[in-house]
């Protein structure tokens, strides 16, 4: 069932187009993460859904009702801000009760709900403190609790974890995930952090430059990136991109300006077709001289214990490899690399043509 529908939303600030026609259908209870680089318009889109900003054109529907011009306070949505936006002059308890009191909800009922919410968020001992007496993580939990007490038809998150340190971010991510599991409230979550997007979302909406580039389940987007931008944006370290061309026989892909050649399989392309090859770092194996596709020189290794990331160079091409094996190589050493699979993108349109998996078709 479609809960929230965004139809052809456009937004111009004077002459700059922030949003260039966004369409999105969100099912009831779904957790949608809007992901994109800064300045792509994702926060503007969220504010339009919240009613804090007006769209230049287009419509927003909530459970079939057009809410495009409905004031924010009548939309029954709750928002969590990056800056927490707690009322600094009120104690945590009063921060919680402010909204319910304004909406004239029953006082006893509110008190009970505040205590339950505080228990869920481990804030029982903080209720009589002021926001400035709390740590960043506690403040973010108060902001979350305030949103939960709204009992909203829709949760909106605007980069809620960006101000927290790495460890707290992980804990809060799990908290948000489990709260969504419990409440099953439709959620729109804006972030630039791909890890948050991959771990939280039912579906990711990947935005760039005012457009939606791709919508899909996290692993679907990762495995089948629609275009070069998507392939580059998701995945850490970045995907390796090489310019290639189909050779005269039509059976091989030749990397331009090098002797590296990969067999074409699973798809037939015309000779002379220009391509961009996208190879995920985990699809490159460190192998031996006989099986390898090409040799490469080590430039830099980041050994993080569980995972080693190798930056190498092959005939002027930058190659990124990630492996769980510990590689004992130093700067300038030659590694023999074997590629297990790659994405083929059309050089002209940036769209993905096909994905080759060498493991199934050796």
């Amino acid at each position, binding site marked *: 069932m479609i809960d929230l529908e965004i139809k052809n939303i456009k937004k111009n600030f004077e002459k700059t187009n922030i949003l260039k026609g966004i369409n999105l259908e969100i099912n009831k209870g779904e957790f949608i993460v809007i992901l994109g680089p800064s300045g792509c318009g994702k926060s503007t889109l969220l504010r339009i859904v*919240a*009613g*804090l900003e007006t769209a230049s054109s287009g419509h927003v529907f909530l459970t079939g009702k057009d809410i495009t011009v409905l004031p*924010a*306070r*009548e*939309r029954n*949505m*709750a*928002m969590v*801000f990056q*800056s927490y*936006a707690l*009322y*600094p*002059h009120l104690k945590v308890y009063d921060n919680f009760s*402010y*909204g319910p009191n*304004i*909406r004239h909800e029953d006082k006893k009922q509110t008190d009970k709900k505040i205590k339950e919410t505080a228990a869920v968020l481990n804030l029982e001992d903080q209720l009589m403190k002021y926001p400035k007496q709390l740590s960043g993580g506690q403040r973010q939990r108060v902001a979350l609790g*305030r949103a939960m007490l*709204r009992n909203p038809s829709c949760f909106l998150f605007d980069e809620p974890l960006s101000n927290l340190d790495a460890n707290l971010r992980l804990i809060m991510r799990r908290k948000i995930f489990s709260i969504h599991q419990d409440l099953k409230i439709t959620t729109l979550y804006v972030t630039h952090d791909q890890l948050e997007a991959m771990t939280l979302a039912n579906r990711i909406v990947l935005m760039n430059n005012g457009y939606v580039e791709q919508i899909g389940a996290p692993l679907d987007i990762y495995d089948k990136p629609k275009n070069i931008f998507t392939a580059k944006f998701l995945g850490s370290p970045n995907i390796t991109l090489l310019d290639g061309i189909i050779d005269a026989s039509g059976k091989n892909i030749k990397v331009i300006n090098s002797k590296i050649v990969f067999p074409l399989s699973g798809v037939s392309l015309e000779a002379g077709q220009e391509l961009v090859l996208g190879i995920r770092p985990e699809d490159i194996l460190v192998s031996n001289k006989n099986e390898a596709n090409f040799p490469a020189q080590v430039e830099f290794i980041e050994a993080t214990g569980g995972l080693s990331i190798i930056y190498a160079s092959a005939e002027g091409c930058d190659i990124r490899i990630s492996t769980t094996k510990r590689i004992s190589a130093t700067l300038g050493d030659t590694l023999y690399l074997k590629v297990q699979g790659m994405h083929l993108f059309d050089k002209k349109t940036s769209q993905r043509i096909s994905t080759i998996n060498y493991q199934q078709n050796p």
Partner: protein
Amino acid sequence: MASRYKTRFNWHTWLETLLPKFVLLPSFLLAIVAIYGFISWTAVLSFSKSTILPNYEWVGWHQYQKLWANPNWYIALKNLFIFGSLYISLSCAIGLALAILIDQKIRLEWLLRPLMLYPMALSFIVTGTVWKWILNPGFGIEKSMHRIGFESFTFDWIINSDKAIYTLVIVAVWQTSGFVMAMFLAGLRGIDSNLTKAAYLEGANLFQIYWKVIIPQLRYTLVSVVIILGHLAIKSYDLVIALTGGGPGKSTEVPGTFMYSYTFTRSRMAIGSASAIIMLLMIAAIIIPYLYSEMRSREE
């Protein structure tokens, strides 16, 4: 090597370290003499037998006893209380209202803001003189209303001894509410705009947002405003002299005018000095706790 540099006299560094001290010295000396010296002198005079000229015969608390037995002093204090409380509360209310209106992303803010600040740029003497004309029933508002046909219109507060104190309030409020507005506006601009958005999404209307979220956060600004206006009210002298001269009768006598008339025109310098010291203590009672709390909050 190092010792050679040390022993050599260097004009440049010598000048660099001492120049600031030289530059500040005259104003420092002037402040010592003209402020603290004369405060001390006034204090000494208040314990003396001075009349038209200083007379250093010590009489202890005698002049203070006479001051607190003087009915004119009580009139001055009562007037100060009426004027001060109305002046501070009205300036705050009008200043805050203007600040909130200006904060609504209105057009022409660049024009309105300085426009409302300009009265503060006038001296109280100028303000007082201009308003004396405006309020004068003979050729001010009242006369103008008569001329356009409202024959029965009367606005003679300035010559009415029951109402004259309120004309002081009107003029002083006119002079300072723009300044109060600027202070509150700075406070408003310092509040995280996401707070308004959060409250808005929680279902609050604009009135509720201002009353419960925004205005409570201006309380530190309010304290500063009250202290600034409070000490202006206590030391008010020039406006009263220019507007009403303390009259009609003694109806707008305030401690400032009391002090001047006893010291310089009524030849009772010791009582005047005693009243000046009392005014100093009143101002100190406002400023010292403020400075103390400011310094404490800065240390934190």
